[in-house]
């Protein structure tokens, strides 16, 4: 019984974790290349969730089609934000980019609130379950997991096999050297920022498969916190570290929820969220450069 429940936790946790990991890659990419922390991260996730709603409820399309659309919207928002604000702040004190990304998040939340209102919404995409014996897996979650792994792989290929991707890595290694070799450093920055935001918005689509009724303009705060826990687990500057951090975090979150439920007189949901904050502080205390080492 306990064993079955634990197996269920591991599987469910890893599936959620893969999506968490993908949802954090954009954050890590932007920090890795530009040394900018996107404090408004959760708001970009929220935009992806609303794009999913639009695809499913308004257009009547499969939510998976929302992924490329969300990525494109994210690219556009990212480019716009980079060229209007971030570009001018790269040499300013860190305070400037922190407050700018934070305010951009607030701006997105308020825009969505003005358009769609602030009540909770949702959609119901029920395409059956797969029974594993110890736990039942909704197929939609499985798709979300596969989609995340696929996107992570595409990013890997793009970084290692394309000219633009290798140019971007050269900028991370040594931006002066890259400039000397004829790499368009400004372009690489803009591209990384846009792709980072694109990934984050696209991850919002995948995350809705886990919270079909919890979509609202202010849903992002929790994801910002989780993304930071995951990013720091994976070393903050590494998108792949973030992906593995996500797997670990998904497992911790799922298991701790089950364990807290055994304690009398507590609310397991709230304690799980407190735990994620404590994990963040502990990692920052013992090893701010990350627990998981991935190149």
């Amino acid at each position: 019984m306990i064993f079955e429940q634990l197996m269920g936790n591991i599987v469910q946790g890893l599936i959620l974790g893969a999506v968490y990991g993908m949802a954090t890659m954009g954050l890590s990419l932007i920090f890795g290349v530009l040394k900018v922390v996107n404090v408004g991260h959760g708001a970009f996730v929220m935009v992806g969730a609303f794009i999913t709603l639009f695809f499913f409820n308004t257009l009547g399309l499969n939510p998976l089609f929302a992924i490329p659309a969300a990525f494109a919207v994210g690219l556009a928002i990212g480019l716009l934000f980079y060229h209007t604000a971030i570009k001018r702040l790269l040499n300013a004190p860190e305070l400037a980019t922190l407050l700018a990304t934070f305010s951009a998040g607030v701006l997105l939340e308020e825009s969505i609130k003005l358009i769609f209102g602030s009540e909770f919404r949702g959609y119901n995409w029920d395409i059956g379950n797969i029974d594993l014996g110890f736990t039942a897996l909704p197929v939609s979650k499985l798709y979300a997991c596969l989609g995340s792994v696929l996107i992570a792989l595409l990013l890997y290929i793009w970084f290692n096999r394309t000219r633009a991707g290798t140019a971007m890595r050269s900028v991370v290694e040594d931006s002066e050297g890259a400039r000397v070799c004829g790499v368009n450093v400004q372009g690489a920055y803009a591209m990384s920022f846009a792709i980072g935001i694109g990934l984050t918005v696209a991850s919002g689509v995948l995350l809705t498969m886990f919270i079909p009724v919890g979509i609202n303009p202010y849903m992002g705060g929790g994801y910002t916190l989780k993304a930071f826990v995951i990013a720091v687990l994976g070393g903050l500057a590494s998108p792949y570290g973030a992906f593995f951090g996500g797997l670990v975090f998904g497992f911790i979150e799922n298991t701790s929820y089950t364990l807290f439920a055994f304690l009398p007189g507590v609310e397991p949901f709230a304690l799980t969220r407190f735990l994620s904050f404590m994990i963040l502080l502990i990692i920052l205390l013992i090893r701010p450069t990350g627990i998981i080492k991935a190149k």
Partner: protein
Amino acid sequence: MNSKLKKYYPLLPVLVAYLILFLVGRNVTGIWQLVSTLLFYCALGQAFNIFLGMTGYVDFGYVAFLGVGTYGMATAVTGLAGYEGLGVGVIVIGFALAVIMATLLSMAVGAVALRLRGAYFAIATIGVNEGFRYLIEGANLWNGSSGMIFTAELNQILGRDLAGRVMTFWADILVLIIAVAAAVVTLLYMNSKIGYALTALREDEDAAKVMGIHVTKFKIIAFITSASFAGMVGAASWALKTPYVFPPEVFEIHYTIEAIIIVMLGGAGTLLGPLVGALIYGVSKYYLSIFLPGFQLFIFALVIIVIIVLFPEGVVGVFKGKVRNNRLKQFIL
């Protein structure tokens, strides 16, 4: 003698502004509500500025200090309601408790976060308010998510008349006193070694370290000072004005956003900035809520981005540049 006194000239416009605000509030009918909101924003801005303005570090979980301050006052009022004859003493104990709790929380957060630089610091603080809220709700501390309502206890301690006066008037006066005290402390810091050390570390932390400045120590001083003022603001403006406390309300990130807007609008690291920022923000928010309800934060988020990109020194910072060769100079800091 004269030059010693001159150091305190910049306090003059601050005090005059608060006096005018108070007199307007007392003498124009129906405006006290607005003045009370403005005083809250002033106190919030002055307290937040001690940390953000002087160190250049952003604490995204700042509202947590107001939250624990509110709980400090709530604990004192509910816990001591049974003791006869303490009267106003309970309020004093409440403030002490608010400061102690905010200080303890800031020491705990600071111990982890202040050893970290810039971006990592911001990341460490971003979950403090949520984390603390979920600890209270999850572990059922202080009644957990049901919160605490202590109007009856406040009435019992102070008597119905005085309790009513506290909620509608004296709490605001306490907020005003806290705002002035925070401004005075800001100036004292600016004129002392602490201010010089913080300026050095804000401009270039590595260089400051090399020059032998114990940067962590000064960051912690600024952090704890700022946090204890925030605790007092929470105790006065939230616990005493509206004698109830619910975790989702007092740990709402909205107030951190407002603190950032106020300080950046007015001018981070200036003495007058938070006051100017609070007045501009408070008054325009008031009118926006009448003429463009729902658009307030949308507009201010845009304003903040514009300020960061174009005028990072804020209104007072720009003004300070204008009066550099002027006799006004000695009054603006």
